[in-house]
């Protein structure tokens, strides 16, 4: 009678046992040996992802919801699903409602933009400091224009201030002959903002004392800006 050979018989050159290694379960020394890929059995549903949790260790991340993107969690320890960031940021336009007198010549005066045409993220302060403090970091496009009455032989300036320091400046002047040809100063500029403490303001300057910065509808004296891209 012939004895059936098993792995345990340990003949020379035979495999005498199958042991599960990392990520594998099962094994044995006789009969039908089944080994199973643990990574495969960890997957329960379509879209499941397997990721490492340490040396030779892994777990499952179930599929997210429609439109989500995969990102690293706040502790930088694992991936997670998150809503895709919208490619947009704060936008505002503020204006001056009534004339603002600039009593002193040759002095930079902050323009009190005391009304908002729009302010998507409530970043513009139109009551106290008249400044834009964006809450999202990135590069911002700014535009401004002020109305200064035109007269002979003086020059009006307009400046964009960032954190109290001028970063962009323009001027419009008259030459005494073609006074009405001089336009009001307007400027545009691109500036970075950290999304927390950086703030932006508009200052005006005239070589003539007692000028009024014109106020009224939104096209008269205004300051606007919009987030363009991240840093």
């Amino acid at each position, binding site marked *: 009678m012939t004895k059936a050979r098993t792995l345990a018989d340990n003949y020379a050159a035979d495999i005498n046992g199958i042991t599960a290694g990392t990520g594998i379960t099962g094994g044995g020394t006789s009969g039908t040996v089944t080994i199973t890929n643990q990574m495969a059995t960890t997957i329960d549903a379509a879209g499941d992802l397997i990721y490492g949790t340490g040396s030779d260790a892994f777990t499952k991340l179930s599929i997210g919801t429609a439109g989500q993107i995969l990102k690293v969690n706040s502790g930088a320890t694992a991936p997670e699903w998150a809503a895709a960031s919208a490619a947009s940021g704060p936008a505002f336009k503020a204006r001056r409602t009534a004339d603002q007198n600039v009593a002193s010549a040759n002095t930079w005066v902050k323009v009190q933009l005391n009304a908002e045409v729009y302010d998507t993220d409530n970043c513009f302060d139109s009551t106290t400091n008249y400044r834009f403090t964006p809450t999202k970091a990135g590069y911002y496009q700014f535009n401004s224009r002020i109305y200064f009455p035109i007269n002979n032989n003086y020059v009006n300036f307009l400046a964009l201030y960032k954190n109290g320091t001028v970063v962009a400046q323009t001027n419009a002047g008259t030459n005494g002959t073609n006074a009405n040809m001089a336009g009001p100063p307007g400027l545009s500029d691109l500036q970075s903002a950290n999304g927390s403490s950086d703030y932006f303001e508009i200052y005006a300057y005239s070589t003539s*004392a007692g000028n009024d910065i014109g106020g009224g509808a939104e096209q008269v004296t205004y300051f606007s800006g919009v987030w363009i891209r991240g840093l």
Partner: protein
Amino acid sequence: MSLYDELLEALPELTENDFWPYVGTIVLQNDSDGLGDYIAKWDYPKPIPDGFKLGK
């Protein structure tokens, strides 16, 4: 009398060019906070005249 006029009186040699944006050595500013005009920058070769100060 404005701060600008007072400075011209204290230092008669000063001209409008000394305050000119970007190229001038003196910057006067008013932050519209009710505190009035003040000297924001003084790079003029002479010291700030008595009775005046830098900042608010």
